[in-house]
Each structure stands twice: as C-alpha cells, then as structure tokens.
C-alpha cells in the first residue's frame, strides 16, 4: 500500500476499527516506513493532548449575563392573554368578519365593478333623498299658503255681526 492510503487508515487503526486484513497491511507498512510510523506517533499524541484539555470554569461576569437573559426576555414580552377573554369573543368575531369583507373587497379582481355598483347605489340614495327634500319643500309651501288663506278667511268673518263699513 502507498503512504497516502496508509495515512487514511491511521485514524481508524488507532480506534481499532480496521478489518484484520487492513490492520495487517498497516502494521506491515509501518514496520518499513519511518515517516508513516512517526505520523502515527504524532497522531496518538494529538489525540491524547486534545483529550486532556481541561474544562474551564465560567467567569462570574458571564454567569450574571446568562442569568438575566430570561428576565430580560420576560420584561419585553407583551402579554396577549387578555385577548382570550370570553367577553371579547363577539368583538373579535365581528372584527374578523369585517376584515374578511375588507380583504374580499381589496383583493377582488372585479373591484372596479364593485365600485361602480356601490356608486350607483349611493347616487340612487342621493336622488331619493333629493326628491324627498323637494316634496318636503312643496309641502311646506302648501302649508304656508293654507295658513295665509285661513288667516284671510278669519279676518273676513265678523263675529259680532257688524258691517264692515
């Protein structure tokens, strides 16, 4: 086997993960190749050194910073539980229906037709109101005329039977 292939097998060799045939091939190569044997020795040293890195303790400053994270989060969290009150449910349902209607209008592809029909209905409403006003005005005029006639008639009546002359 070539050194490149042996190098690939050194780590599984260290962990005893090679099949017997590969293991024999590696051991036979290591007996004749000083460079690969040295590499294996350095790999062992590397593995041992890494395993012996101690665990560091946290500084008090970092611990303080970590302990206040949940409090900070709670402080800035908006409590929306009040929205779940039963009393608010009809209001929320009405708001939902309103929103649906608005979105139906806003996202409808025939929005222009809706606008036209709404305009037509509004104009019809206006013209009806105008007619009502006109009728009300003529009724007021008639009432005024009746009032004048009544007053004139009352003046003409002589309650004591005296001559106007």
């Amino acid at each position: 086997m070539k050194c490149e292939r042996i190098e690939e097998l050194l780590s599984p060799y260290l962990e005893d993960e090679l099949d017997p045939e590969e293991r024999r091939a590696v051991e036979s190569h290591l007996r004749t190749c000083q460079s690969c044997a040295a590499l294996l020795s350095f790999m062992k040293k590397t593995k041992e050194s890494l395993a012996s890195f101690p665990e560091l303790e946290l500084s008090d400053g970092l611990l303080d910073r970590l302990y206040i994270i949940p409090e900070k989060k709670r402080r800035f969290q908006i409590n929306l539980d009040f929205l779940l009150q039963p009393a608010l449910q009809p209001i929320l349902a009405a708001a939902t229906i309103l929103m649906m209607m608005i979105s139906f209008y806003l996202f409808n592809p025939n929005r222009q037709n809706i606008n036209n029909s709404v305009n037509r209905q509004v104009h019809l409403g206006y013209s009806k109101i105008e007619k009502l006003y006109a009728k009300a005005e003529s009724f007021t005029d008639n009432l005024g005329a009746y009032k004048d006639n009544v007053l004139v008639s009352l003046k003409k009546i002589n309650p004591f039977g005296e001559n106007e002359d």
Partner: protein
Amino acid sequence: MLVNAYSKRIFNMAYQFTGAYEEAEDMTQEIFMKLYNSLEKYDFGKNFSAWLLTLAKNHLIDQYRKTKWEKKSRDDFNEHYLSAEASDRPEEGAIREESKKMIWEGLRKLSSEVRMTMILRDIQGKSYQEIAEIMSLPLGTVKSRVNRGRLQLAKILKEEKEK
C-alpha cells in the same frame, strides 16, 4: 436551570472553537439568547442536549463565516488552560506542554466543520453517532472529517517538531 446545567459545556465548546476568551463569552451569551427564543420549537421527543449542541454549533459556524475571526490568532494556550490544568489535572503533567500549545494553535488551521467535529470527538469525547446527530451528517462523513482533522494536526505537530 438551563444555565447551571449547560453553560459550562457551551462556553468550553465556544472557547475551543474560537480560541478567544472574550469572543467565547459573547458567543455563549448569544447562544443562550437563541436558546430561550427557540425553546417553543423544541420537540420533546428529541434529545435536548443534542438539540442544544446543534443550536450552538450552528451559531458558532455561522458567526465564523460572517466574521472570519480565525484570522486573528488564538489566545495563548497558557493564558487560561495552564492554571485550570495545574489545579484540576496534575496527573497529566507527563503530556508535554509544548505539543499541547502547538495543537491548540493548529486547531485554527482546520476548516470550521472539521474543527467542530474534532472538538466534539477528541476534546469532548462524544461518540460518532452523537456527533452525526449534532452535526446532522451521515456517520461516514463524520468519521472522514475526524480522520482528516487528526491527520492535519499530526502533520502540523510533525512539521513543528522537525523544524
């Protein structure tokens, strides 16, 4: 509490990955902020520790890609490790200090993915299966990354010794 149970593991992972103490402290804080924001997404059927380490790994590698902090040199090995080692593990004095320094510095030369795999496997001693779960990778890819990382570090050590 989450901080008591996991902060040491996350901080050490961040320090081993970044090699910079202050950077690792900031990363730990950011990871915990992300953790509290994503707790609702946690699926209770899954292993919490693996889920948290995946979140930490993703954050560290993403930040590494954004800031490329590997361009800065890593902290001096003795700066934080020597004091911790002297008090915690005096029995390991046989392993030479110089090699450890070279390996610590050599971690900087590994790609972020290979470095993270090496940290999980050779520093934290996780099984290949656990690493595959944390890294969301097939088992074969994890093993080949570990092989590559060990070989690169061994070559760095060999070259330094032969100088």
